[in-house]
Structure formats: structure tokens, C-alpha cells
């Protein structure tokens, strides 16, 4: 398991290769990369700054990886989330899940992202033509996370 909160960019290929290194029991790796967009809520976004709650962030991420491992037989998980100022196109978050088979890898990857969106203490502030704007939480993200408690 690897959980990192960092300012630097990450490389999906490097992270996936690191998971595979030296082992032959992995049959599937599912990964997700979230990127900073140039448009949100109808206005252009020149950049965004990610703030977090040091200490609680790592704890919250570890907990949701533990929850995923309790639900599915996973072989490895990597979660990397960036903080600081990011430009459109920059990668924000990476989740990669290794398992024996694709089903649990896909499901756990989506589960971790859905819970990260609603549980991990990160906040985005966008730079728009009208000035700085804190991103508001979305009901659709709450609904996405709630799906997992019904199944």
C-alpha cells in the first residue's frame, strides 16, 4: 500500500510498474487519474490551489484504502493526491488497484475515488476571470459514495 500527499507531479506508468515489480500474482491493475480542467461552472479556470488538512488527510486516505481492502481481496493499492497550485491539464489524483482479477480492481478503484471525493479533507480554490472561487461540494459526489453503502 502506498499513500502519498505531495506537491510534485506523479507518473502513472512509473506507479503501475512499481506495483508489478517482482511479483507474478497480479492479474489486473485498474487505475484512475483525475486532471485539473480549464472550465467549471460555466467559467474559465486559469489555475487551482489544493488545500488540505495535514494529518487528517493521510488518516482519511488510509481508512478508505482499509475499507476497500476489507470489501475486496486486493493485492496492492496506490493513492497519490497533489496539493498546492495546479494548472489546467495537470494531474491531481491517482488511484491504482492491483488484484487477481479485473472485477475487484475496477470496483475498488471506483470505490476509493468515490469515498476520497466525500471523505478526504481537500479543498479546491479556482482562479477565474471574476477572481478566486472555492469549489462547492456536489450532491452528485455524495450520491456516488452513498451507492456503496446500499450494496
Amino acid at each position, binding site marked *: 500500500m502506498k499513500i502519498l500527499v505531495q506537491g510534485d507531479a506523479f507518473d502513472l506508468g512509473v506507479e503501475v510498474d512499481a506495483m508489478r515489480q517482482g511479483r507474478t500474482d497480479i492479474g489486473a491493475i485498474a487505475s484512475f487519474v483525475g486532471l485539473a480542467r480549464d472550465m467549471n461552472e460555466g467559467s474559465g479556470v486559469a489555475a487551482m490551489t489544493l488545500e488540505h488538512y495535514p494529518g487528517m488527510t493521510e488518516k482519511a486516505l488510509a481508512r478508505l484504502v482499509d475499507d476497500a481492502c476489507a470489501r475486496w481481496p486486493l493485492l496492492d493499492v496506490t493513492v497519490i493526491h497533489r496539493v498546492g497550485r495546479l494548472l489546467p491539464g495537470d494531474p491531481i489524483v491517482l488511484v491504482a488497484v492491483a488484484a487477481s482479477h479485473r472485477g475487484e480492481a475496477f470496483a475498488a478503484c471506483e470505490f476509493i475515488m468515490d469515498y*476520497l471525493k466525500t471523505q478526504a479533507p481537500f479543498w*479546491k480554490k479556482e482562479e477565474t476571470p471574476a477572481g478566486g472561487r472555492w469549489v462547492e461540494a456536489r450532491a452528485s459526489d455524495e450520491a456516488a459514495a452513498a451507492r456503496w453503502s446500499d450494496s
Partner: protein
Amino acid sequence: MNTLRVLYFARLRERFGMAEETLDFAGATAADLVATLQARGGAWAEELGGARAFRVAVNQDVVALDAPLPARAEVAIFPPVTGG
């Protein structure tokens, strides 16, 4: 009397003009603390008065407002999260 370390993040940090403070607090629960802060008026009342959503974490776990505050707790108040 309980001495709390209270942290504010994101929009609340900006609106309150501080990232953290140390508070001597006589109440028992997170709701008591929120009521005390809200009584400061201005941005405190606007943000914590019920019109806008906020979350409270005690010792780095999100809690319900009726949660008790342990001695020397680290309490954080912040908007709903928007990472990912």
C-alpha cells in the same frame, strides 16, 4: 474548563481571518463550540448559523454535532470537502 486547539480550513479560514486558535471552552459538545463561535457575529454567524454547510472533526475524525469534546481536543471546522 477545556483548552481546545481549533483549526479552520479553506473558505472558513479565509472568512474568519485565522487558520487556528487556542480556546478555553466551558461547553461539552461540538454543538456547544459552534454556538460559542457563532455568537461572535459577522462571518462567524454567517458561516456557522445553519445557512451554509460545514463539517466538524474532533482529533481528525469527522463527528456529528452532538459529539463530546475530549480534553485538549484538536477540533477542525471546514466546508464540505472538494478534492479528487
